[in-house]
């Protein structure tokens, strides 16, 4: 009789939680408690205000001792939230934690149902199912796996950089993989940072070189992760090094090759400067690029087109660092944990055609203006229109792409603040009339509102209204040959046409184009809008549903620099806590073969995605390597002879749950499907 699993006939303690009013306001917990008391095997049945509280847990522990309970069932919130808490409680009470079962009557009942009677009936059914289930629970030993202390960080923006340094400074090995030729990400493109207005480069470049010089950090730029296998503690990643046609270890960034390039003047749009300046086929992204190594762009280099270049660059390099025949190389690394900090992509302003980006030459994106105001930018810090004039008036349009059902529903969080910053910088550089067109001004953050106050004092115009269109159609003389912004000044309640010489689009933040592929590769989820999904919005903001994989920065959602850095620190701490523990406990929900029943049909073997199942030819039976099994249970469901069982999800356990849920369903069904429930 399977109801005696090693510790005598079941003596069940049942506890239903009020969760304040969260559950009790919809489910009649007392009725549930009374009902469960009548079920076979139940010795104690109680309801309590907060089961997860210390007194709640002590209640369980004391009952175990006093009534010699050997099974515990708690009906409260989602097991994803508190299963661990109660298992520990049971363990403290001297019980094997896997004699515990949790029933979810909050997320699954009281929060989603309104009819109190129906909700209470549902809760009873779930409770009965749980009670019947624990009959079949068995004592299990937790599975432990060691943690490889190395960490891989994907993405070398400010988040990746900060996480890398934090972990490296703790003495752990870090592989920092960056897709571009240099680390620094978007922050490296910014001029000043709000609200303190300290120069982005001044605070970022020291961290960049710190990464380069830290012996614990292996920095791989111009490289991409191709494949990830394994699981928490021991991941195996394949990294592809893209050819930059320069031997990284030899190049010292003297840039002689650039001067020597057959192209005397630069004629290709410079990615880093948003195409506002030109570069040569051989180039270095920007002066403080890290590593200080040039690269060759095969798209534009003559030698790649015609193979008939004088190769003046090669002659010029006295270290023979240039190798135009480089190809992809692959490298495999083993790490225990992974941090994803792949960042964001600015909203494509062309998707908001009413603002005429790409149609009217003097409509700029915010990132372009960041480069314009930057001293090392294409205009050496002069704010000029594309026709080279100093603007007399500038309009900054907020929420471009954001808060719009047609493009992004979400608020991008940073645009209000960076628009204020740009307004200040533009005014400082040009003394132009600056207009901010905003829907709502959002300045939550230390010193942010004060920054807004400062701008108000500086005499910047703030017009509350979403701009309908930017047009070159002049209705009034003052609008001739300028851009006219048509907007309702909603605070005054009239429509206005405001002519300007320059329009700045505060484009929102959107997920990177390949976010979906990335999340598949790392087996994590995305939320609806396409940013990586955290395990819990409040309590596990940098964890994912895959153990050992953490997320930091704008890849999880729009974020400013302080928040990205904070998250990076958190992610690093999560990784370190695993590393320091040295091992991680896994659910013992693995599968195993009951050899005597196995018919050796081999149908399970191809099903296992982890090739944990092998075939023992000597005894003609299948064998499951527990270390490799992840406990999905696919093989269990497929085994024709029912000779595979999965811990915590054995057939009897699930059948008894089904049975318990349906007792007295509509018509009485007892006659048919009472599994051997009678208690000896």
């Amino acid at each position, binding site marked *: 009789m399977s109801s005696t699993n090693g510790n005598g006939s079941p003596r069940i303690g049942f506890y239903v939680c009020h969760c304040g009013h969260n559950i009790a306001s919809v489910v009649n917990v007392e009725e549930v408690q009374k009902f469960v008391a009548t079920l076979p095997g139940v010795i104690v049945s109680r309801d309590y205000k907060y089961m997860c509280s210390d007194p709640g847990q002590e209640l369980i522990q004391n009952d175990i001792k006093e009534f010699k309970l050997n099974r515990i069932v708690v009906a409260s919130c989602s097991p994803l939230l508190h299963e661990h808490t109660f298992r520990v409680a049971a363990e403290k009470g001297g019980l094997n934690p896997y004699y515990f079962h949790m029933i979810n009557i909050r997320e699954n009942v009281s929060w989603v149902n309104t009819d109190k009677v129906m909700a209470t009936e549902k809760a009873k059914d779930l409770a009965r199912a749980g009670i019947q289930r624990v009959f079949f629970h068995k004592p299990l030993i937790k599975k432990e796996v060691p943690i490889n202390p190395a960490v891989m960080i994907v993405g070398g923006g400010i988040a990746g950089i900060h996480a890398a340094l934090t972990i490296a400074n703790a003495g752990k090995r870090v592989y920092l993989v960056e897709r571009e030729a240099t680390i620094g990400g978007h922050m490296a493109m910014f001029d000043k940072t709000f609200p303190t207005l300290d120069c982005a480069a001044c605070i970022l470049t020291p961290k960049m070189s710190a990464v380069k010089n830290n012996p614990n950090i292996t920095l791989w730029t111009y490289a991409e992760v191709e494949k990830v296998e394994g699981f928490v503690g021991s991941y195996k990643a394949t990294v592809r090094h893209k050819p930059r046609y320069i031997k990284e270890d030899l190049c010292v960034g003297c840039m002689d090759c650039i001067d020597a390039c057959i192209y005397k003047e630069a004629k290709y749009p410079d990615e880093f400067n948003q195409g506002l300046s030109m570069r040569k086929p051989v180039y270095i992204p920007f002066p403080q690029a890290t590593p200080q190594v040039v690269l060759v762009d095969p798209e534009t280099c003559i030698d790649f087109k015609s193979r008939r270049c004088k190769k003046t660059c090669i002659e010029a390099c006295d270290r023979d660092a240039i190798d135009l025949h480089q190809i992809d190389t692959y490298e495999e690394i083993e790490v225990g944990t992974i941090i994803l900090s792949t960042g964001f992509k600015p909203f494509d302003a062309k998707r908001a*055609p009413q603002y005429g980006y790409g149609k009217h030459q003097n409509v700029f994106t915010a990132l372009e203006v960041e480069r314009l105001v930057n001293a090392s930018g294409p205009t050496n810090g002069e704010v000029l229109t594309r026709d080279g004039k100093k603007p007399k008036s500038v309009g900054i349009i907020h929420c471009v792409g954001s808060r719009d059902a047609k493009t992004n529903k979400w608020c991008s969080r940073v645009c209000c603040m960076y628009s204020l910053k740009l307004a200040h910088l533009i005014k400082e550089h040009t003394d132009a009339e600056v207009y901010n067109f905003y829907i709502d001004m959002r300045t939550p953050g230390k010193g942010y509102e004060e920054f807004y106050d400062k701008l108000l004092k500086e005499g910047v115009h703030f017009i509350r209204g979403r701009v309908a269109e930017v047009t070159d*159609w002049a209705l009034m003389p003052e609008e001739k040959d300028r851009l006219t912004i048509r907007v309702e000044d909603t605070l005054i309640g009239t429509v206005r046409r405001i002519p300007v010489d320059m329009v700045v689009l505060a484009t929102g933040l959107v997920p990177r184009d390949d976010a979906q592929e990335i999340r598949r590769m790392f087996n994590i989820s995305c939320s609806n809008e396409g940013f990586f999904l955290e395990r819990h919005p409040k309590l596990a903001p940098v964890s994912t549903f895959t153990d050992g994989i953490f997320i930091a920065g704008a890849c999880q959602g729009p974020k400013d620099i302080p928040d990205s850095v904070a998250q990076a620190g958190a992610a690093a701490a999560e990784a370190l806590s695993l590393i320091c523990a040295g091992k991680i406990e896994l659910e013992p929900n693995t599968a195993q073969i009951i050899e005597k029943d196995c018919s050796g049909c081999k149908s399970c073997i191809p099903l296992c995605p982890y090739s944990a199942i092998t075939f023992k030819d000597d005894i003609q039976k299948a064998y499951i390597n527990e270390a490799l099994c992840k406990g999905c249970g696919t093989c269990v469901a497929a085994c024709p002879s029912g000779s595979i069982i999965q811990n915590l999800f054995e057939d009897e356990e699930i059948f008894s749950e089904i049975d318990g849920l349906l007792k007295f369903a509509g018509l009485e069904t007892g006659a048919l499907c009472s599994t051997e429930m009678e208690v000896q």
Partner: protein
Amino acid sequence: MKYLYYPGCSLKCTGRAYEESLLAVFKALKIDYTEIEDWNCCGATAYMAVDEVNAFSIAARNLALAEKQFEKEEEIQVIAPCAACYMVLIKTMKYLNESPALKEKTVHALKEAGLNFTGRVKVRHPLDVLINDIGIEAIAKAKKHPLKGIKVASYYGCQTVRPYSTFDDQRDPQTMDNLVKALGAEPVDWPLKTRCCGGSLTGTVAEVGLPLSYILLKEAARHGADVVVTACPLCQFNLECYQTDINKKFNEDINLPVMYFSQLMGLAMDIPQKELGMQRLFVKPEKVLKTVKGGEPAYV
């Protein structure tokens, strides 16, 4: 392909030239059409303002008639040249299909009149048909007199492209410009292609409507247009017939011909002017007529 043709009230009255020229062009391009028998007014914008269900139902009557007339067809193609009719009919299809309650009411009422509506109709705008079914090449081939050096401002107005039509971009439509190109003329790229002409306001509340039409004419002229072509009887009416009032009110001397795209096609395809209703225009498109071979004066 066989089409059903829904003229709408305006094309029988102020917009006669539109019907005449369009059908002439259809004939020339061998487009097989038949007029919906005993069609009724689509309800336009005004009807919606008094009673919505009625508005949808009377519009639906036309769709039901179409289904009756072409009962064998899997999908019935109905051409509605008038912008208002076109929009109303599409809107009716959309709303009836989206709201079962509304559909039920309407179908019930139609039954009273011995009709039925299943929703097999696809409402098409002539521009849509010409560009996507007939094709730009066929049209280019059909032209006899290329309209060399004629600058044409295509004016789409509101309801041809907004809000439910899908055959062209809602903010910067191109079909008419492509058509104009195919006729050998030069489309002018101007910003007010889809800006409202004032609609019925021009006639009823002149102080609001006239400025809108004025702005359009002014801007078209500023971009050097020799002629404005439209696909909407009301737009054509407002822009052409009120030019005297506009000149008086804003003391201008605008004299800009405003014609239907179908008339322009017809001229290029060497269809006699009478068949294109050229004699009905107030402002004679001199320059166009000159380039067209044998361009004798249009109307007496």
